[in-house]
């Protein structure tokens, strides 16, 4: 697809005197369900103000037009290698993340609310991480049970007492935000190695090509500065005589997010390194170049703590760099995010984040948490076991949608098996109600239909500034009625347009 091959319905100012209505015309297959907040339509089936222009244009689009657009986007992703690797039983295969060609829209006010909530949350989480690796006030004061923190597999005793540059433990964060009729809420904080930002940027490029006129007319806030901001954030974490040399540490090309590692390194002008490219000599980290060893100042690591350094963490790690943690402790290299941050995105700790915000910031949380029951407590376990068919149960250290039970979609046998696991290791689980995730318009199987969505905005925290890309990876549960948005579980993604001035003038 090229910029010159525009869809016929891509008009900057479509005739909005006859806007589309859910359930008729171009939206014949779109059914508004009052149980779920609909991002596109009001409950009476008319377009929301923010969606009026986009919806009107889409109502005039033929399924063939949209299919052609969708196919063009997919083809472009394949040819440009915007893929993730799936490791099968026999071999690794490359797949593209399914992209939906209908953007989701948010007004400036809605985004402002999310933006303030995320800043507040990340500030509190950084203070919490500093606290648990130093004084431990929040543990002594009973804000979070000490055994929950100290017993967490992601708690790194090696970080105790270590002065992290500028007290910034989490520089890069991807927080999953959902919307229900009650408003926005945080579903999960990803503080270790959050991924997906490259798909957010690639989606945006694809949408600009697909809807150039509509895009321009919507006055959408730009997200293209993310790599530049990421570099500035990483460079701000230390004090350097000259320009710091930044490297992106990747597990290698078989990692599912390898494209993203390569993309970010390329956009930042950083070295894309693997463990074997780095050596530590006299406490200094060097990269092997063709003209000898060159010092590395900042490592944006996309490798889990366990594998960072075989001398300090898992001795069987082939992905890490022997002696890296020693160099880090000596203050000779900055690692972002800092080792040991995973404790703060543990799903059990998540339940305490609102209390942590109140404790550290003396503020009320701007973004709500999802109601969470800790199975490690007697009441939490009993409630979860009594209501398995109505709850979502997750492992506290799980990710990617793996190892969870979605009660209403499970069989009695599955629930029995899960209950046995719960009883034997209650500490390992939390439960949450099944959320009425909002729905957005998607082009699926030749029709415009609603699907459940969430969004993962990306937050960067530098020495003196916090920057949030005004957009995010909007994840879509592509299966009809499905609630799991993870790409590993059949989810896709779409672009999120954050508008500059709230409503689009009609």
């Amino acid at each position: 697809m090229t910029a010159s091959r525009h869809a016929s319905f891509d008009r900057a100012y479509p005739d909005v005197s006859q806007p589309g209505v859910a359930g008729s015309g171009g939206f014949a297959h779109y059914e508004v369900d009052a149980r779920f907040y609909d991002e596109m339509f009001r409950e009476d089936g008319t377009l929301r103000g923010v969606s009026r222009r986009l919806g009107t244009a889409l109502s005039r689009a033929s399924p063939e037009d949209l299919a052609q657009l969708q196919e063009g986007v997919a083809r472009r992703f394949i040819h440009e290698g915007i893929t993730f690797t799936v490791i099968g039983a026999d071999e690794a295969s490359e797949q593209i993340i399914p992209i939906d060609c209908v953007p989701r829209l948010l007004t400036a006010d809605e985004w402002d609310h999310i933006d303030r909530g995320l800043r507040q949350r990340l500030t509190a989480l950084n203070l919490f991480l500093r606290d648990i690796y130093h004084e431990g006030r929040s543990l002594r004061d009973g804000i979070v049970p000490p055994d929950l923190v100290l017993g967490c597999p992601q708690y790194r005793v090696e970080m105790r007492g270590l002065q992290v540059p500028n007290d910034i433990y989490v520089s890069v964060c991807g927080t999953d935000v959902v919307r229900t009729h009650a408003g926005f809420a945080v579903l999960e904080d990803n503080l270790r190695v959050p991924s997906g930002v490259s798909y957010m940027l690639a989606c945006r490029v694809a949408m600009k090509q697909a809807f150039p006129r509509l895009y321009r007319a919507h006055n959408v806030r730009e997200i293209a500065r993310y790599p530049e901001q990421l570099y500035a954030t990483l460079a701000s974490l230390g004090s350097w005589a000259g320009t710091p040399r930044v490297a992106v540490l990747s597990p290698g090309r078989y990692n599912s997010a390898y494209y993203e590692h390569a993309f970010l390194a390329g956009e930042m002008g950083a070295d894309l390194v693997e463990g074997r490219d780095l050596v530590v000599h006299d406490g200094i980290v060097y990269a092997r170049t063709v003209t000898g060893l060159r010092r590395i100042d900042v490592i944006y690591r996309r490798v889990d703590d366990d594998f960072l350094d075989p001398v300090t963490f898992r001795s069987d790690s082939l992905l890490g760099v022997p002696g890296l943690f020693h160099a880090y402790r000596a203050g000779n290299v900055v690692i972002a995010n800092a080792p040991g941050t995973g404790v703060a995105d543990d799903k059990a700790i998540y339940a305490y984040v609102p209390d942590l915000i109140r404790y550290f910031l003396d503020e009320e949380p701007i973004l709500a948490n999802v109601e969470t029951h800790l199975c490690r407590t007697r009441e939490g376990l009993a409630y979860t076991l009594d209501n398995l068919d109505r709850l979502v149960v997750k492992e506290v250290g799980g990710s990617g949608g793996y190892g969870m039970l979605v009660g209403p979609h499970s069989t009695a046998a599955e629930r029995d098996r899960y209950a046995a696991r719960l009883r034997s290791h209650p500490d390992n689980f939390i439960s949450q109600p099944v959320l009425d995730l909002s729905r957005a318009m998607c082009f699926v199987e030749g029709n415009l239909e609603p699907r459940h969505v969430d969004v993962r905005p990306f937050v960067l925290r530098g020495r003196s500034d916090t920057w949030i890309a005004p957009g995010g990876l909007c994840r879509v549960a592509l299966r009809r009625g499905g609630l799991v948005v993870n790409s590993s579980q059949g989810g896709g993604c779409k672009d999120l347009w954050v508008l500059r001035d709230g409503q689009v003038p009609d």
Partner: protein
Amino acid sequence: MLARAAADFYWMGRYFERAEHTARLLRYQLARLVDTPAGELAVGWRVIYRALGQSAPITPTVTDEAESFLLADAYTLAASLVEETTNPDSIIRCWTTARDNAKQLRPWLPVRVWTCLNQGFFWLRDCDFPAAWATGPAGLAGEATDRLRLLAGVVEARMPRDDAWRFLELGRFVERLQHQAALLDAWDRIGQAPGDAPSLSWAGLLRVCAAHEFYCRTHSMVIRRGPALAFLARNPELPQSLCFAVHRIEKLLAGIDPRGARYPLAAPHRMVLRLSATVETDPANQNDAEGDGGSFEALLKDSRALHGITVSTYFDYPVEAGLPS
């Protein structure tokens, strides 16, 4: 530049050159299926496999039955060089491995280069070899050559002349030097036979090397062994000549490691000077019309040594050797 990335560029260049060389030889051989006697075709297959350093899956025969098996043999032999994934030097394997190298080079590789490379890979991977054979055996090799040349053109147009480009080119020309030396050697040793036995023509060698027209224009329409070999070894204006490859390697090394080009010379620079001297000093009695079975062995040996020295100097050096002074 990161040593591993440089190594990946170097290998990517080598694999693409290898694929293009194979495609070029195949294009020549398959185009001759129409009218060339079976015995001569059999010699052609032997020369190709020998030049590529591979053993043929079947032995092409020069006996009387050869005519009946001509197409079947050609199909088997060509398939092994194009689509056989178990053959590490087949075109599909070269392309796949080069793409694997390229995947690790995304931060350094312009998007257009990657896209061109990737589209070529998908074309080859999804190619129906039997169907392509049915429509014209030489067409597939021709298309592969054209796509590889398109890629070379996009590289030429899009890549800055930095170390990434230099290592890519270095890989290409080291590979070219080795392949051309092996081709001249094989053509000279087993492509010729005394008396009436089937032989390959010297004009054919010039055609394979895209040098026939240039030779006729600058030398003569009468093509003999000595001048033809000398032309392919020493003409500095012919991209497929040994001399051209050696000079390019010399220039690329000077860009990669300017200090190594000053005395005392670094090991790769020293080796390339030696190669240059060998090319200039008649490696296979090129002035002899008949030849004496001499070969390009010394040149081949030195070009392989150059590869080893390049790897140990720029990619796999000991840590102590790389520490800043």
